[in-house]
């Protein structure tokens, strides 16, 4: 019985330490407001998502929070922020998209990846048409 109580006490102390550290990470304002700077940056991020992905067409969100890219083989990729980093997915037949003037919302077949809404300016319509071709 004493051993079990000891284990529960340790668990409680660990939980308290976790909450304290998580609170400290927020309190110290850790993280970062990262943005896609330019096409070269988007290109480098695409290569991180898929080694060898060489885009010929790039559309970066006006605020730099994400991007859409297409390579010579017609493959399309979406990149979005994830915390203080970026992550992305190659778009496939299950891709969902919704166009609202200059804003294009993209959802991938990976539900955990979530949706991203990109302000692509006057390029939004062209990319929406491209995405519809993948899903067709």
């Amino acid at each position: 019985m004493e051993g079990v109580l000891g284990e529960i006490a340790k668990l409680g102390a660990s939980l308290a330490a976790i909450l304290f550290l998580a609170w400290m990470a927020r309190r110290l304002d850790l993280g970062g407001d990262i943005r896609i700077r330019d096409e070269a940056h988007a290109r480098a991020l695409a290569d991180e998502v898929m080694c060898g992905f060489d885009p010929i067409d790039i559309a970066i969100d006006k605020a730099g929070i994400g991007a859409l890219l297409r390579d010579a083989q017609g493959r399309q990729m979406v990149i979005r922020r994830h915390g203080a980093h970026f992550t992305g997915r190659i778009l496939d037949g299950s891709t969902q998209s919704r166009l609202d003037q200059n804003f294009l919302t993209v959802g991938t077949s990976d539900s955990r990846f979530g949706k991203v809404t990109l302000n692509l300016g006057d390029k939004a319509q062209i990319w929406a048409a491209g995405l519809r071709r993948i899903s067709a």
Partner: protein
Amino acid sequence: MIVKLPNPVDYAVPIFVLMILIEMIWARRNAPEKYEPRDTLTSLGFGLGSTVAGALTAGLVASMFYWGYQYRLIEIGWAWWAWIACFIIDDLAYYVFHRSAHRVRWFWASHVNHHSSQHYNLSTALRQSWTSFIALGFIFRLPLVFIGFHPAMVFFCGAINLIYQFWIHTEAIKRFPAWFEYVMNTPSHHRVHHATNPRYLDSNYAGTFIIWDRMFGTFAAENDEEQIRYGIVRQLGTFNLLYSVFHEWIAIAKDVWSAPWRYKLGYLWRPPGWSHDGSRDTSDSIKARWNERQQKAVTPAE
């Protein structure tokens, strides 16, 4: 004979917390993006869950080790040199486990948890698996009790090894003197291990002594000219703790379910990323593609 030794990890936890705090303050001053509060919370949630899972299965693992100890080859006992020998052989066993954990998908399904953060800081060290018992990670240490090391000694040395590996999960330390970097696993060597840059994939599996990687051809030195990217080849893109814990097991179940009968087992024992139709990337295929590109870059087109 059952021997009860103290668990060194219990004593190390307060030091872990203090070191994370110090590293957070360092990050605040030098590079706030090295930490991300949601990522830190997920990592620490991994650590807590792993402790609970370990406590629930510890009895079973200990029973198996004591059973194996009955069939030991030699009587090693508790001499001072036995502790040193046990630690070194346990570290070799860790190397074998760790290499397998990256090359066999069943083991990877558990170990991937430790790699699933895009950050590399001391909180990442605590991102430990909840499912290592299911993944059978303990079998790699069993040979030590068959040799004749007492199970309590093996568990104690394993815990010291785990504690050693905590502090090397940092970007705050650049390099140590050459002799130390040659023998010991260091932050520099382990950054390489956590990297997703193609040149670094499947390297530096060491726990405490980097010499195993040097001996078995898996060593890669950190290249200061290339920025390291951390995480896994297909980043999770979520901070959801439960999904982060079980995502690879879910993926295995889906693959085994949908694969033709003769390929089902391949999704369990082949390398992560393997697929029967070759439609996915493994670390080998990524490295091959990267090497090909590097060669093209240095060989001018004719």
